[in-house]
């Protein structure tokens, strides 16, 4: 019984071709390991960018600001400012409020410091406007018009242009990152293909023997693909582990910075699953690359 179990365990490890010999295996493992390391990091960046995009969109969507520029010779009175807020609040689905000195202090704090004497600075008056998402009546044009009626110097900033640019940039970055990960995958496949070709030439005698005994091309290709799969899984697992260590290192280094400069990276369970599946994906890529290379090369054998 135990013997039978041992045989069952041993059988899949047997290679009819001595593919486990030679130095090519380490090269494949290492190359796939490095590729996987980079791919995992690129994937994390893509995921982080995607989640940052959602945060930016959620934070700025439906938000506008009215700025009343500082003008020493023609100051807008507090009553006028309150009139404008009242008019704005009358619009359907619109909520407006004047930003206090503390609010403005929090905004300019990173540049001027928290101890700045804001009252003595020529700061504009800012009115924060929140518009309900489903509100189609209170258009930016209507809000701008309402503001101009009460205070002609008021300027409406919808953030939309800026947000659209940011989103476009983020989308472009994401595309570049996805392209990089595809290039990494393609390079890994090329490495496996080149190694398979070399090993096929190296073991030509044994391959010829298998053919003479009656082995099909598919049988021989299976030998190569099994080995490529194993080497790729080993290498990619190492790459994934190294990438996770790198992420942990970045996380620890970022702890002191807070979320102001770098947004936190929070991966969803699905995104974690993608990362964990990287070795398997690398294995499948290596397997397919090896199989097709060997089949293609064998087809040319007379």
């Amino acid at each position, binding site marked *: 019984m135990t013997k039978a179990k041992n*045989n069952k365990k041993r*059988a899949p490890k*047997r*290679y*009819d*071709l*001595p593919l*486990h*010999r030679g130095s090519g295996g380490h090269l494949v493992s290492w190359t796939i390991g490095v590729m996987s390391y980079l791919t995992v990091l690129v994937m994390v960046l893509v995921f982080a960018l995607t989640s940052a995009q959602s945060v930016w969109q959620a934070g700025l969507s439906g938000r506008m600001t009215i700025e009343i520029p500082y003008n020493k010779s023609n100051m807008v009175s507090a009553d006028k400012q309150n009139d404008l807020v009242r008019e704005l609040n009358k619009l359907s689905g619109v909520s407006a409020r004047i930003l206090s000195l503390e609010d403005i202090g929090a905004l300019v704090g990173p540049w001027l410091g928290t101890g700045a004497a804001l009252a003595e600075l020529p700061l504009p008056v800012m009115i924060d406007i929140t518009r309900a998402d489903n509100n189609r009546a209170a258009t930016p044009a209507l809000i701008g018009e309402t503001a101009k009626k009460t205070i002609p110097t008021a300027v409406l900033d919808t953030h939309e242009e800026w947000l659209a640019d940011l989103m476009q940039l983020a989308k472009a970055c994401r595309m570049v990152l996805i392209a990089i990960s595809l290039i990494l995958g393609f390079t890994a496949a090329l490495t496996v293909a080149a190694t398979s070709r070399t090993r096929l030439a190296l073991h030509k*005698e*044994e391959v*010829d*023997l*298998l*053919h*003479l*005994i*009656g*082995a*099909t*091309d598919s*049988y021989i290709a299976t030998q190569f693909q099994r080995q490529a799969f194993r080497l790729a899984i080993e290498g990619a697992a190492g790459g994934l582990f190294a990438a996770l260590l790198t992420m942990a290192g970045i996380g620890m280094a970022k702890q002191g910075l807070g979320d102001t400069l770098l947004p936190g990276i929070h991966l969803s369970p699905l995104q974690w699953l993608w990362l964990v599946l990287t070795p398997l994906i690398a294995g499948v890529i290596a397997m397919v690359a090896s199989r097709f290379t060997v089949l293609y090369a064998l*087809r040319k*054998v*007379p």
Partner: protein
Amino acid sequence: MIQFEKVALRYETGPEILHDLNFTLEPGSFHFLTGPSGAGKSTMLKLLYLGLRPTGGKIMMFGQDLHGLTRETILPLRRQIGVVFQDFRLLDHLSVFDNVALPLRIVGREEKELKSNVNELLKWVGLGDHVKSRPPTLSGGQKQRVAIARAIISRPRLLLADEPTGNLDDAIGMRLLHLFDELNRMGTTIVVATHNEGLVQEFGHPQLHLGQGSVSVIAGSKKAA
């Protein structure tokens, strides 16, 4: 069963190495393939085990014309041919058992089924105690028997051996030929390439004699030991 008609062979644009080969191997026959060194014995064996395609003439094998067979359609024919190579061509990283089991695994035979077949055959060739040994640890004679076991495990209709006694002393060579005789009695068609005149005389089987690129059939003395 196997018929060569005006078969010729040349490598690329070189001169014809073999030409005008005409002979027939009847089922269950035993022939020695003889001729001086360099006469083309190994090349003719390659034609027989379908390792080479002729550049002229026609070969009929097991009722099929080889002309026009593709790489895929030639496989079923190859599986009916066992070959014992001069240099054995064993796979050193595999055990004796795995080397012999190879042809059965290639055709997808169940492990349980092939285990008993392989063990039985290894006992028959006197290697029952070397099932787990690797070829590099075996003597020349033992390697030869592993090669024979691998060649006959799938009960081929045609067994070809290239100088099987070349690396063996006379006594072991004789034992080996007796083993071939036994297989032949079971119905396997056998062709043994050899330059050992003593063995040819001793066993008295007909000869396919190669000389100057062509073959002549010499009748045997039928005085088998």
